[in-house]
């Protein structure tokens, strides 16, 4: 049975293909279209999935969209009515937006793919999040919590999932909190207030929070109060996201927290103003964590289960995830590699297979590598054409050479195998370098990633030695598998892991199982043999504002535009030669024509 899952039209659209109950491939549209956060209908992703699996659209048994468009329309229209007449500016935009395309998903999918309308199905948004979290996790029974900005109406839901011994699967949602009361929107409002991009830069708020003190928790608690039934509600007088698309927060919000940050001014943490912004970030982060912990604790008491599957965009908050593990009572927390909307493509397809069609449960590969594979020969060809230094090496030689590069403080662009599905680079499209010094961190920020100095870099470490360098609690290894938890760096190693130790002494560590990425694991060991510390700094292979690279040629162009020293794709290793043929030819032309 062939089932295609699609998520689109909000942010980060994606497609995923499930064949006979097992995911075959999945990719975000942005990785193919090269437009970061591409929300367009994911035609490229769909085409790639079908081509990769050698399946024609006629062979699809179902195409599942990750939310119910008319239910979403209902929410938008209802909110516009409730906000009458303040919503008069937002109303035409919202209607054109929805009626122009988004509510006609059955027709769009049917016409784009040439499949009959009866094959087009719809899950609810949080149902897809729940399925993505539970059905990809290696657990038989678990509580499920999903939280994001908003789906159709739900912003947070709790429930449970069970794989029966007879192969049956159940996913139940007990209850939900509905828009406009939303933890995701609360966090996004602060993201906007702090001058970052909503739906994109929330992780910057988390990074900034470590520099601040939660001195404004009481003010944040004015914005969100607990309801008698244990849920929460936002005080809407502080927000405008439900009435207008123009601004998330109201003048009252700005009165409470002070003037918002100008997005074009850098945050200077040495000034009182910069520190106020950091304190703001720390305060909302604290309230988010507290709320999640209380909700999860109640869910744990209610279900008595040891495992929690956590999905939705809020599950990308690694600091909150670590607190959930420490304080909610759950022994293990499973966050999928793509907990956000992109992952809903996979969740919707799996939900359709297990629940709608009632197909028996299958064990799924426990990795994030579902995208296109890199072709080292493509890199060799183009780099040779440009006259750069190219070597094609056997695996062992390549690992040794790369370990030498890293030990010599070179920055390596590392591409191997299939592309990651989800926002994290987990070792197949990574920039790797030595984690020892702050100079390396500053160099990466300044010369390669071109990003704010307050943002931390993440480490990758083999599972078996992770506990030596990081204080990973029981159950934390699972959370760290897909870089979903933030844990303390052990004090005795902080001085030798300066580049990946955040200002609060923590790191968003990835613990690497050799079966998941054997070559990277071998590289870590080879690097460890040279330096004594098998830990590398691992950051996504992209430049600011660009999606993570997919093909070798994209890695190559990133390599040429930045100060990455070495590029590895498959078995090909490239280093820059300043007198490269293409370079001199282009310079000659520049002189001639300018």
């Amino acid at each position: 049975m062939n089932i295609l899952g699609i998520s689109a039209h909000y942010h980060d659209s994606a497609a995923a293909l499930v064949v006979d109950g097992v995911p075959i491939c999945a990719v975000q549209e942005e990785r193919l279209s090269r437009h970061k956060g591409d929300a367009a209908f994911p035609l490229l992703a769909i085409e790639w999935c079908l081509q990769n699996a050698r399946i024609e659209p006629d062979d699809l048994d179902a195409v599942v969209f990750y939310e119910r468009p008319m239910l979403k329309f209902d929410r938008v229209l209802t909110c516009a009515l409730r906000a009458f007449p303040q919503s008069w500016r937002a109303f035409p935009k919202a209607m054109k937006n929805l009626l122009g395309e988004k509510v006609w998903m059955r027709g769009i999918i049917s016409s784009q793919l040439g499949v009959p309308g009866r094959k087009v199905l719809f899950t609810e948004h949080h149902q897809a999040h729940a399925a993505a979290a539970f059905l990809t996790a290696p657990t038989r029974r678990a509580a499920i919590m999903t939280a994001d900005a908003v789906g159709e109406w739900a912003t947070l839901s709790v429930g449970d999932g069970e794989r029966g011994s007879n192969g049956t699967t159940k996913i139940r949602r007990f209850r939900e909190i509905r828009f406009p009361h939303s933890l995701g929107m609360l966090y996004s409002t602060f993201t906007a207030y702090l001058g970052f991009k909503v739906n994109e830069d929330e992780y910057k708020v988390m990074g900034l929070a470590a520099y601040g003190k939660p001195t404004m928790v009481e003010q944040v608690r004015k914005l969100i109060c607990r309801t008698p039934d244990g849920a929460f509600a936002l005080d809407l007088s502080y927000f405008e996201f439900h009435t207008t698309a123009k601004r998330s927060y109201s003048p009252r919000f700005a009165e409470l927290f002070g003037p918002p940050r100008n997005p074009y001014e850098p945050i200077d943490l040495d000034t009182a103003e910069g520190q106020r912004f950091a304190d703001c970030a720390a305060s909302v982060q604290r309230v988010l964590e507290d709320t999640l912990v209380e909700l999860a604790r109640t869910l744990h008491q209610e279900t008595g289960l040891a495992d929690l599957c956590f999905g939705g965009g809020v599950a990308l908050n690694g600091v909150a995830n670590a607190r959930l593990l420490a304080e909610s009572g759950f022994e293990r927390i499973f966050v999928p590699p793509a907990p956000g909307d992109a992952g809903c493509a996979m969740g919707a397809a799996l939900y359709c297979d297990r629940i709608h069609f009632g197909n028996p449960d299958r064990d799924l590969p426990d990795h994030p590598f579902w995208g296109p594979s890199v072709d080292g020969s493509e890199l060799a060809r183009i780099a040779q054409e440009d006259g750069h230094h190219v070597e094609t090496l056997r695996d062992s030689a390549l690992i040794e050479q790369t370990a030498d590069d890293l030990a010599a403080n070179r920055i390596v662009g590392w591409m191997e195998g299939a592309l990651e599905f989800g926002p994290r680079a987990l070792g197949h499209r990574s920039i790797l370098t030595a984690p020892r010094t702050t100079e390396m961190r500053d160099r990466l920020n300044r010369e390669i990633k071109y990003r704010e100095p307050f943002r931390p870099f993440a480490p990758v470490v083999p599972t078996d030695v992770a506990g030596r360098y990081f204080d990973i609690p029981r159950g934390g290894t699972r959370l760290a598998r897909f870089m979903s938890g933030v844990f303390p760096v052990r004090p005795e190693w902080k001085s030798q892991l300066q580049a990946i130790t955040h200002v609060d002494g923590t790191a968003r560590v990835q613990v690497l199982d050799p079966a998941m990425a054997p070559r990277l694991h071998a590289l870590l060991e080879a690097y460890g043999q040279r330096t004594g510390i098998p830990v590398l700094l691992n950051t996504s292979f992209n430049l600011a504002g660009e999606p993570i690279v997919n093909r070798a040629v994209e890695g190559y162009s990133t390599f040429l535009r930045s100060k990455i020293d070495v590029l590895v794709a498959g078995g090909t290793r490239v280093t820059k030669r300043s007198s490269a043929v293409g370079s001199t030819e282009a310079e000659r032309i520049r002189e001639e024509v300018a």
Partner: protein
Amino acid sequence: MDSPRPHERPTAFDRMLTPVHRWIWSDTNRRVQKLLRFGETETDGGRDILRAAEVTSDPLLRRLYLEHAIDEFRHGILFRHRAAELLRVSRSHSNIGFQGDWLAPGGHGLDDLQVDGESDQTMLAFLHLSEKAAASRFCIYRDVMQHDPPTRAIFEEILHDETFHMNYTLTQLARVEPQQHKRHLWRARLSRLWKAYLRLATSLAAILGSILLTIQYFVLLPPFAWMAKRAAHRESAGWTAVSPTSSDSLNRQY
């Protein structure tokens, strides 16, 4: 002031609009918004040209596109930094009313060009015309910016790059298509005209749509808004139970 080089002469149409441009750029708030928008346009254009570098099979074009893309990214940064400086001085904020965007579309951008599907010839012809149009426009901007020397210097610098971009795209087009490069330029001109028409038509349609929807909003919606508000008062905050049967069928869109 040096006399302008031939490629730095604005078109007659742009010259005609000089007073409008002068008025638009005279206000600091409008200037900030324009610069920020140019910053985005240049960066977006840079990404598209970078994509062209990644998809071309011609090694020399790859290198030139890459340099071109780097220039565009740099222009984006120059515009953003200048806008930030002006913001810092003026403490202005976002809502500044009329900007005359339809008169002054700014940097070239790549419209809706699907870079992945285009041949080198089409791409070069398109880029050449875009750069030429941008150079003409930037020439006017530079000339009307005498009251703001730092911004003027930025346009001067970018104009120099645009000249290079304009020239290399033409010479490369002649290289990759020696016989028919003029035909490609004419096709690109027609394509730009068509896209301009589409932009205008969709803008008009959007304006008409907004007007009709706004009328409906005030005429038809009030009773429903009253009912929706009443319903909202009856709703209690907190948990809403999810019915076990609510998601039984995946056929429903509702």
